[in-house]
């Protein structure tokens, strides 16, 4: 009879050594009580699919050296952070995922989905995930003028566009709306133009920390050259990696663009004169509401639009249901009927909203794509908050 029991000590030791070289976070997993609260809140477990993903089981296997990185499940995690928010022992599971993905990407210790392999290598060569021409990065600006220096303006900001608003067909709407909004106020702003490269979030989340470092260095030296200390990003993902991983001191102030809109509206610099007589729901991007606790500002913006009726979806604020785009999810193709974005759109439909607004180019892409592919969602318009605010000024 074949003995199929696992050899506990040996494999655990090797896994332990490999992981402790990768990251400190591994040590935190020793505190796991296996209570399962992480798995319950994980949005993936709400999908109607035979694919399985259990953060709790991941940690159990990790600690016993039984982790099998040859499966697809390592890539199901969208890095939304819902697990981290509820874990009684504050285990940074998203960082654990990151460390494991690094093992796969750098040491070939497991399976890497082909689409991510392509995006990682494209980021390395073209500084964006789609092998797009870097010299066409600011093509989205065609037809929009960025006016020369505004006189008497007390402020100068750097607008960091990001890969999606630069190249993605839906994302470009965000970039164009943002610039049009800024043109209406007395703030000097610049972009990095074609010198801008990916913030590195896509590399970081997919386990290519070396690729991330490379992109970070390019961006930080460009920032230094520009010398503008206030940076606003159109994507919460860019904001997250930059504010947490780029700068060691407080020399640069990085914020998501939505906070600038909020500031301009609350101080009455940007006046919303046109009514929008629609029911509006807000999809909180995970990298605003969960990772950075930005929850009230988007709502305050929407509530200041006259004629608009604001409705909340079932999962709102910090409990927002992930669209599925983070953590590399935007590059993976999930089957129709097995997408987190569909669960979210169903909630939007149930809330009676005419417009579903978000504040993240990845969310816009994920929700927009799923909405287009199904008649169920044909009555809902998916918009970015910049577009909506532009319609209201």
């Amino acid at each position, binding site marked *: 009879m074949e003995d199929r029991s696992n050899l506990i000590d040996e494999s655990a030791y090797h896994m332990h050594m490999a992981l402790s070289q990768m990251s400190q976070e591994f040590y935190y997993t020793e505190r796991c*009580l*296996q209570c*399962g609260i992480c798995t*319950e*809140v994980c949005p993936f477990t709400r999908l109607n699919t035979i694919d399985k993903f259990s953060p709790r089981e991941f940690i159990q296997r990790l600690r016993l050296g039984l982790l099998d990185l040859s499966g697809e499940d390592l890539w199901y995690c969208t890095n939304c952070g819902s697990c981290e928010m*509820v*874990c*009684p*022992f504050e285990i940074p599971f998203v960082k654990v995922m990151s460390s494991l993905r690094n093992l796969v990407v750098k040491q070939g210790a497991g399976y890497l989905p082909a689409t991510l392999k392509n995006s990682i290598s494209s980021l390395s060569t073209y500084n964006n995930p789609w092998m797009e021409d870097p010299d066409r990065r600011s093509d989205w600006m065609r037809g929009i003028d960025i006016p020369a220096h505004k006189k008497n303006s007390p402020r100068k900001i750097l607008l960091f566009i990001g890969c999606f608003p630069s190249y993605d067909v839906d994302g470009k709407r965000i970039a164009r709306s943002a610039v049009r909004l800024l043109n209406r106020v007395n703030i000097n702003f610049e972009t990095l133009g074609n010198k801008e490269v990916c913030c590195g979030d896509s590399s970081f989340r997919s386990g290519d920390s070396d690729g991330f470092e490379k992109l970070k260095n390019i961006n930080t030296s460009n920032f230094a050259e520009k010398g503008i200390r206030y940076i606003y990003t159109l994507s919460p993902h860019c904001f997250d990696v930059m504010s947490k991983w780029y700068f060691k001191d407080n020399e640069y102030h990085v914020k998501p663009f939505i906070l600038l809109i909020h500031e301009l509206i609350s101080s009455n610099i940007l006046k919303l004169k046109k009514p929008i007589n629609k029911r509006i729901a807000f999809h909180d991007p995970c990298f605003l509401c969960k990772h950075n606790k930005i929850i009230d500002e988007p709502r305050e913006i929407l509530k200041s639009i006259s004629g608009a009726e604001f409705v909340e979806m079932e999962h709102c604020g910090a409990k927002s249901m992930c669209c599925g785009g983070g953590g590399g999810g935007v590059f993976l193709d999930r089957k129709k009927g097995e997408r987190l974005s569909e669960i979210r759109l169903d909630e939007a439909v149930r809330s009676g909203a005419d417009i579903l607004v978000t504040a993240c180019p990845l969310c816009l892409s994920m929700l927009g794509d799923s909405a287009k592919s199904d008649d169920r969602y044909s009555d809902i318009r998916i918009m970015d908050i910049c577009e909506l605010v532009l319609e209201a000024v």
Partner: protein
Amino acid sequence: MSHKRVVIVGGGVTGLRSAIALDDFGIESTIIEKKSEVGGRVVGYSKIFPDFRDGRKIVDDLAGAVSSSSRIGIIKETTIDHVQKKDVNYTITLSNGSVIVADAVVLTCGFETFDATRQGEYGYGVYPNIITSVELEDFLNPHGSTKGKLLRPFDGNPAKRIAIIFCVGSRNKRIGNPYCSRICCSYSTKQAIEIKELDEESSVTCFYMDIRTYGRGFEEMYQYAQDIGVKYIRGRVSECSTLLNGDIQVRAENTLLGRPVQGIFDLVSLSVGMMPCADAGKMSELFGIRRGSDGFFIAEDEDFNPHSTDTQGVFIAGSVTGLKPIRDCLLDGASVAGKVASYLKKLDNK
């Protein structure tokens, strides 16, 4: 100003038991109790694990022994305002204005339960059908506010489907209580049994992380609970939400099956953990004794001198030193007397 040998702070079962034990040594004591009645929490428990003895009766027996002794005095509805140490004596000023000089002080102030509103995701204080184990205890008490009937607070209808959530406010570093409260698994199992024995048709589901029914007779009680049909699901509940009719929906991962699970219940009881007594900070300051990182008092030596503190003449017993079942509190009450007695003897021989 009166001179007393021993002042006992707290008239719960530990305080009462220590007064009786001191009385056995011929030592007089005065119990200071902040409420209008002695008996602390135990007086409200109609059944105590593992033998399902009546808490009211235990308190009555203790109170009876106390009142029949001329050496034990009780001052009710009073707290301590000020303490001054003079040589080996303690000058204690009470809130009623009177002053007592004591040779020894025994702190038996008990504990607090975790405030379940601090875990907002469970909806306590928001959804009426979500209660704490403390309230469940009252509902199950034939002398309690519902006369022993299990009813849904939302509409007063009978509660047939009950969920008990373990580890609320314990084993949770995030909210500041990483420790295990030790008795919740046991009292929750006891409550589950009570519910089933009250109504055979009821369904009771316990959502647990581990079952720590560790004491003598506790494991057997857990076995009995399962025999009579109490369901145990291993998974920490992430949230409770309400339906329009007041029903509560509970979600967790069934970690033993590796699948998410949800259930609809009439009543959800949060088994709250123990926390240091509300006066712990004040007592610690007044008497100069240390508290652990969990907030409970620290003894001079946990193994050899568990009743003594860093302050000579100040002793601790019962739940103030940590979480323990009532049986252990009574044991503490009995054993601290020996320590106090030998201390007083040394004082007298000086």
